């Protein structure tokens, strides 16, 4: 199956799904939210599937960008503006650039583009489908007893609230993460430096 046909198939499937969701959105009491959700979710799912199916590593990195940005869109929908922006800055603007950089620096590797063996493809498909079936079945099929003491759905948290939480309740994880980043920075800088013999 050529790359183009695969992508077309994914595109078609997702288009149908998004159209159905869009139609459902018209019946919803908050059509704009439903519409935006179907757009972002559709883009996310498309990108995720494309990452699995595409054979070119640079293209999977590009699809990863699509997935990350649409996940950021979902965060915006969930009222997590700060998180959405952090996702865009750190993930899409930082980690993804790092990954693309890595791809380009290791670009001359002979297996950059490869055809997996049929057995591997079957295994991956099996793993993916099984995991999806199992998790979605138990996630959607479980009873979700209401939590004691949980507050109901709240308005979007402001940056100020998040900042305060990070420096009070989550002060310790915050500091630990800063130590982690320091160590990681030193380690990564050391490893990526050219060897002087």
């Amino acid at each position, binding site marked *: 199956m050529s790359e183009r046909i695969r992508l077309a198939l994914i595109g078609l499937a997702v288009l149908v799904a998004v159209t159905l969701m869009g139609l459902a959105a018209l019946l919803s009491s908050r059509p704009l939210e439903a519409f935006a959700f179907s757009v972002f979710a559709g883009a996310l799912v498309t990108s995720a599937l494309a990452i699995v199916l595409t054979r070119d590593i640079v*293209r999977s990195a*590009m699809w990863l960008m699509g997935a990350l940005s649409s996940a950021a869109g979902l965060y915006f929908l969930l009222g997590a*503006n*700060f998180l959405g922006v952090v996702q*865009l*800055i750190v993930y899409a*603007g930082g980690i993804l*650039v790092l990954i693309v*950089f890595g791809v380009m620096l290791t*670009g001359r590797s002979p297996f950059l583009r490869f055809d997996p063996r049929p057995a591997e493809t079957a295994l991956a498909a099996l793993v993916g489908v099984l995991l999806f079936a199992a998790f979605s079945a138990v996630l959607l099929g479980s009873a979700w007893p209401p939590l004691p003491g949980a507050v109901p759905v709240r308005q979007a948290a402001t940056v100020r609230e998040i900042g305060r939480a990070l420096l009070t309740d989550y002060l310790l994880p915050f500091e630990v993460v800063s130590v982690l980043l320091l160590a990681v920075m030193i380690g990564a800088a050391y490893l990526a430096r050219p060897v002087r013999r």
Partner: protein
Amino acid sequence: MADVYVPWPQPRAKEFRGPSRAAARAAVSAYRAGAPWVRKHPALVFFALLAGGCLAAWGVQFLCQEYVRVEQRLLLTARAQPGQWLTLEQLAAGAVEVRAAVPAVLLYPLQMLVVRDALGLLGIITFVSILAMFAIWLERKVAGWIQSRIGPMRVGGWHGWSQSLADGIKLIAKEDLIPAGADRMLYRLAPYINFVPALMGFVALPFGVYWVFRNLDVGLLFILAMLGLEVIGVLLAGWASNNKWSVFGALREAAQVVAYEIPMGMSLLIPIMVAGTLQLTGEDSVMARQAGGWFNWLAWHSPWTFVAMFTYFIASLAACKRAPFDLPEAESELVAGFHTEYSGFRWSLFFFAEYAAMFIVSGILVLLFLGGWDAPWVGLAPAAWGEPHAPLGAQLLYGVIFSGPFWFILKAMLLVYLQMWLRWTLPRLRIDQVLFSCVQVILPLTMIVLLASVFWELALGSSAAFRVFSQVVSFVLALVGAVIAVAIVLVALAGLRQRRALVGTMGVERPLPGG
């Protein structure tokens, strides 16, 4: 022809047809009709366009405000649920009681968020297109003046004002080549990945109190995120071109932009810390903190914000890959860097993105340090003029003289001009020098400044004597800033006047053959 060996496959000439042909034709005929008139009264046309634009903008704003008022009345009378669309019956029932029934009916579609958003997006796209074309023309003129040339002079008449338009038509009509061995999908996609974030940056960039597409509580971060996303388009373009110069350009771009994002963000942290918010407009925003005239601008709040303004400006040059940091497209080494292989419309998208980004970073500087859309003398304005219910004329005058999008664009364009000036004045750095200056000069400097600023703010909060001292300091800094601003303008004007007297001047402003 047959015996000439051509090492690359001969591209098939593309038909010049379809919408681009129609667009080109329409543009040419419009130009034919309008050009003589414009040629006769250039200054008049310019100011008429400016005034007309302001008028139209303020008219729309007025109608929107009026509409909001009407909508509130309607909601009260018709007892509609907020957030739900009004039906026509409700509208009719409510409109009887309302003064401005006519605009209400006319603007009925505006109550739908979708319509408002579509209009807003259209406005942003239009603005970016006009901005890019104007900035490209300006860049060429500035380059010419600085190099004792005169720049484009022919197309359109008055200083070649429609050169960019003509170039645009040419680019649309141009053949679109994709190099052999390129990743075709990525090659086509990359310019859009580069351009769309630049456009999205305008979503959260306010031009005036109400002049913003979405007033996000994380507005500033959102814009920074969009600026950061542009890199990926460049990287993909470089990779997909299947050309080593393109890849070099792209890798340089990635290294440079990712490195300079840190000092850029840290310099912005300083005014953000003073203001205590990331919101750019509204009740609790960076702009509310700077209200009341130029002494309140954050640039001279403390010595540290003053320094931060300059470090931010330098980092923003690198973020827009402008000289002296234009390594990614260093033409003397890398042909044209990441866009070596691009031509036609896709090529022009990169430039749209670049000029849009230049405007955005300048706009952020203006918003965070230089009082945003307020004129320096906004404190002198009669209080009644700035009211939302003031008469239209008063609002218009207020917008032109004291505070409004006009001022925002003016200030931002001044900074864009400054960026161009630097580009044609300074030599280019080497890539190791670029990274050295980021990691070992600007980054430590911003860290020190950030730390010092923290202590400065703590002292401001605790000591009255220090507050007096700080006011003296900021007064001095404000004067210094004013002197710098005036000096910049004076030097630029003097250079413009003197350019014909300079040694080596080749062109003179007189009618050219065929002009």
